[in-house]
């Protein structure tokens, strides 16, 4: 073996003692480095394991909410007013808004996607990036099948069942049922929607809104595993899925058959409203506002064209004429004047007023006209109700006096909401008690006189009622003084006595109301075999056409007269004389009581 000189020389330098010292140093560095690394891994894998394990799960799991089917809404006989039908929603899990735009761009070539829908999807993503972003909340089967064909091109797309609201009766129930839609950003900030997440469907308007908490059910959730780019790899173990809890059936007092009948009578040509109540309980049997709209078209976003059409319609289909519209009640309110006077003992049903009706009444320097220019002559209270004589009620109002008249009206509920279980009911307009303060505040101390009582006495003046509140008042007339709060949801009734009359006075009033239909202003609306009771009203609208003031036609009444089972109030907007409303009301009551009108109703006019 030959050793090079350099190697020999080096032998001297790497002295065994030096080498041992250095190798100990090197071993120490090695040991410390590995102890440090092992310690670091111990900290991460054992000490902080729980934390990292949780993050690992969150990392790969994405929550997919499963919408709960909303509760089925049924009428008093179990007929379906609102149900959930199969629908599909298309959503996508994406890591960023940019990739969402890319997906939207590509998906646009397969399914129709408008600019607005794409923008809405980006907004949804911004609001909540952790939830799958809904692209189409209301996809048809056709779209879904087209998308399924191209499934592989769109990883991260989630197609799932999204029960869709359907109202079989369509526009017939639009006045009370409402519709559903995506919860708005504004709603999410209110305490009523605490716990709701963007994208969730909620009730909008009507009982869908009023009873949202009972109708919504409990949203379920399933998990999918996603990869690092947020693409769905597969569904997670089904044991992790929380199934949605459908809401229970929601029973209402509505009689869908009657509701449909009412809607059919109004059809497309008449504008107005009708409310039918069970006088004993206040149960709303039917509530309609005409013209209606089709709530089914509101689901999943109202088509812009349809919405514009509704907004542009002069008859204002979106305005609920039963609960929001306020109209002078006209002669239907004469009963309030009569009750107040009877309660005060100022008059009996058989009493006549000092001045006979000659077509008008002179009060101070003003002349108040009766609707019948030739005059009614001397009438009893009962006859005045039957004939709707204004002159009689002018005098009665004066006898009561403005102060007591207003106080009486307030007690009868003229100034309060009916309390029906629908959102956005209007408060009627009526003077507050004490009247002097109200009128002084409104017109100044010298701006009003007892003359104001004359107008109030016949249901004009500072009095604008909702149809539903007039209906509440007439439940008391049907019940001998006990008013029932109108109620759509079935449940314990809420009743309240608003006036008390001795039986002679009460029966006298009721007979007078029956007389209205029997031989009075609504005589054309008689039904054979059952006595109807009610009062017509022809209220000034303040709207003129061709120099003639247009009137709203009212009828408020109940049947059968001696043992009422239904209260009906009908208002025809610009409908002319109350007899026209009476005919419709009589048809409604007849239909409900399974009776046919004695006299076939002509189409128009008297």
């Amino acid at each position, binding site marked *: 073996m030959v050793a090079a000189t350099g190697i020999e020389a080096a032998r001297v330098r790497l002295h*065994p003692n030096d080498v*041992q010292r250095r*190798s100990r140093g090197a071993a120490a560095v090695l040991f410390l480095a590995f102890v*440090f690394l092992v310690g670091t891994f111990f900290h*991460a894998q054992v000490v902080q394991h729980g934390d*990292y394990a949780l*993050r690992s799960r969150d*990392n*790969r799991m994405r929550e997919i909410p499963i919408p709960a089917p909303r509760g089925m809404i049924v009428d008093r006989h179990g007929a379906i007013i609102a149900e959930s039908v199969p629908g599909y929603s298309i959503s996508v899990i994406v890591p960023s808004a940019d990739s969402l735009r890319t997906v939207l761009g590509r998906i646009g070539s397969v399914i129709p996607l408008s600019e607005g829908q794409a923008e809405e999807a980006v907004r949804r993503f911004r609001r909540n990036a952790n939830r799958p972003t809904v692209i189409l909340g209301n996809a048809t089967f056709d779209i879904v099948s087209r998308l399924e064909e191209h499934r592989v091109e769109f990883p991260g797309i989630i197609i799932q069942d999204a029960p869709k609201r359907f109202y079989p009766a369509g526009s017939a129930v639009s006045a009370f049922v409402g519709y559903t839609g995506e919860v708005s950003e504004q709603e999410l900030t209110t305490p009523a929607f605490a716990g709701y997440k963007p994208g969730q469907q909620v009730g909008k308007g009507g009982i869908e809104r009023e009873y949202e908490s009972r109708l919504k059910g409990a949203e379920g959730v399933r998990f999918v595993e996603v*990869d690092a780019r947020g693409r769905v790899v597969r569904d997670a173990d089904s044991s992790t899925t929380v199934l949605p809890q459908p809401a229970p059936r929601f029973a209402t007092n509505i009689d869908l058959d009657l509701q449909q009948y009412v809607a059919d009578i109004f059809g497309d040509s008449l504008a107005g409203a009708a409310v039918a109540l069970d006088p004993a309980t206040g149960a709303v049997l039917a509530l309609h506002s005409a013209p209606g709209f089709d709530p089914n078209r509101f689901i999943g976003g109202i088509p812009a064209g349809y919405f514009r059409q509704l907004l542009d319609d002069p008859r204002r289909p979106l305005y609920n004429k039963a609960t929001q519209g306020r109209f002078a009640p006209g002669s239907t309110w004469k009963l309030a004047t009569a009750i107040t006077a009877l309660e005060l003992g100022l008059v009996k049903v058989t009493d006549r007023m000092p001045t006979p009706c000659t077509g008008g009444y002179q009060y101070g320097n003003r002349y108040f006209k009766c609707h019948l220019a030739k005059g009614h002559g001397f009438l009893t209270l009962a006859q005045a109700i039957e004939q709707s004589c204004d002159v009689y009620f002018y005098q009665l109002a004066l006898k009561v006096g403005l102060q007591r008249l207003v106080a009486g009206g307030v007690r009868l509920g003229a100034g309060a909401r009916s309390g029906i279980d629908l959102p956005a009911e209007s408060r009627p307009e009526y003077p507050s008690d004490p009247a002097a303060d109200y009128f002084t505040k409104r017109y100044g101390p010298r701006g009003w006189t007892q003359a104001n009582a004359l107008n109030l006495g016949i249901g004009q003046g500072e009095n604008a009622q909702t149809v539903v509140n007039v209906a509440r008042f007439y439940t008391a007339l049907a019940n001998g003084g006990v008013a029932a709060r109108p109620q759509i949801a079935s449940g314990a009734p809420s009743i309240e006595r608003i006036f008390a009359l001795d039986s002679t006075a009460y029966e006298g009033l009721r007979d007078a109301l029956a007389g209205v239909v029997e031989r009075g202003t609504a005589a054309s609306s008689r039904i054979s075999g059952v006595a109807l009771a009610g009062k017509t009203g022809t209220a000034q609208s303040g709207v003129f056409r061709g120099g003639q003031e247009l009137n709203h036609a009212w009828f408020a009444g109940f049947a059968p007269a001696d043992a009422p089972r239904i209260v009906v109030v009908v208002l025809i907007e610009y409908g002319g004389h109350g007899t026209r409303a009476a005919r419709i009301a009589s048809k409604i009551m007849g239909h409900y009581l399974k009776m046919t009108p004695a006299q076939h109703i002509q189409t128009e006019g008297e």
Partner: protein
Amino acid sequence: MRRLADADYPLVALALVLSVMGVAMVYSAGQTDVSTGLSGLWRMQALHLALGLGAAWLVSRMSIRTLDYVTPAFYGIVVAVLVLLPFIGRGAGTAKSSRSWLYLGDVSIGQPAEIAKVAVVMMLAKVLASRSDAPRTLADFWRPALVVGVPWMLVMLQPDLGTGLVFIGILFAMLYWAGTRWQLLVMAASPVVSLALAFNTPLWGAWFVFIIALIYKTRPYMLESVAVVGANLAFGVVAPFVWGHLQPHQQQRLLVFLDPSSDPLRSGYHVLQSQVAIGSGGWFGKGFTQGTQKRLAFLPEQHTDFIFPVVGEELGFVGVAIVLALYAWFMMRCIRIAARSQNTFASLVAFGLVAMLFAHVVENVGMTVGVMPITGIPLPFFSYGGSFMLTCWIAVGLLVRLSLEGRGQADTLVI
């Protein structure tokens, strides 16, 4: 001739166990739920291992004298290839942007920077062994510094910061093993430490006082003292001042220039995903091939630079500790070989090789758990890649050969 029966077989066994585990982990890294195109790579890696074993056997047949003799030529060829690489190299694999791959026609030969590490170790050993005594002044560093500096510059130009750092580690480790006083090494490294501490004034102040004391104690040449103090001041005071006056985008550009593999946005994400994978492994892991972070491709480069998190996620702390213990054992055997060797060249080569492997393991493993910066250097015997597997096994072959030259004076170093 010494008989092969005297070779350090535990060393070979350890390297083989680590390599087989490595191939298994490459297999596992390919088992994903999303298409990553990695599922077949383990077969290639097994081929790489077979090639490596062959190369190791060939190398182990060469005498120290032959090795000593071929070193300058080997080094020269490697440097020449590195010089030519910017013109003939291509990007590939995990380093697509840098021209670090050598191609022959359309066939990729490998990454010359990997084998360059072995060449640098051998050349440095030859240069250090050729002198009768260890470097005593900083000026004596010029020859070793040149040997490392030339390939280092070429590697940094690729650019490949990780490999560059490994070169620096090899240089200091071998200078230490050659008998250079630690004070001198500290002084040589002090400007870089100053730069690292520049943004913490009290710490930097303490470091500066320490350097002054060191100079006072060791009394190097005046010129060197001035150079060391000057360099420390420049890096510790002037650099932060200049840095502070740079626009953020300029700072960013400088950082990317220094380390192009560090995508500032993604690297934090990578470390986090790596830590989540490791941390979620717990004591015993999620089971071989069952790692969810890996299956869903949350781990970046899970077959190369970030293969160790797969070990952490699937085999747990127990698996990690076993692998690290195997590495430590392997390296202790290497130090033993270096210490037992009667030949300065052989001893320096052995120590240089262990320094290289140590730098790789500590940097790679430390990076996955967030205690080292992300530089993108592979884990010996584990990371997928032919050139590095070959390099590691050539190192093993060399060590086996070197172990035959040992005589047992260092037996007091019990391993």
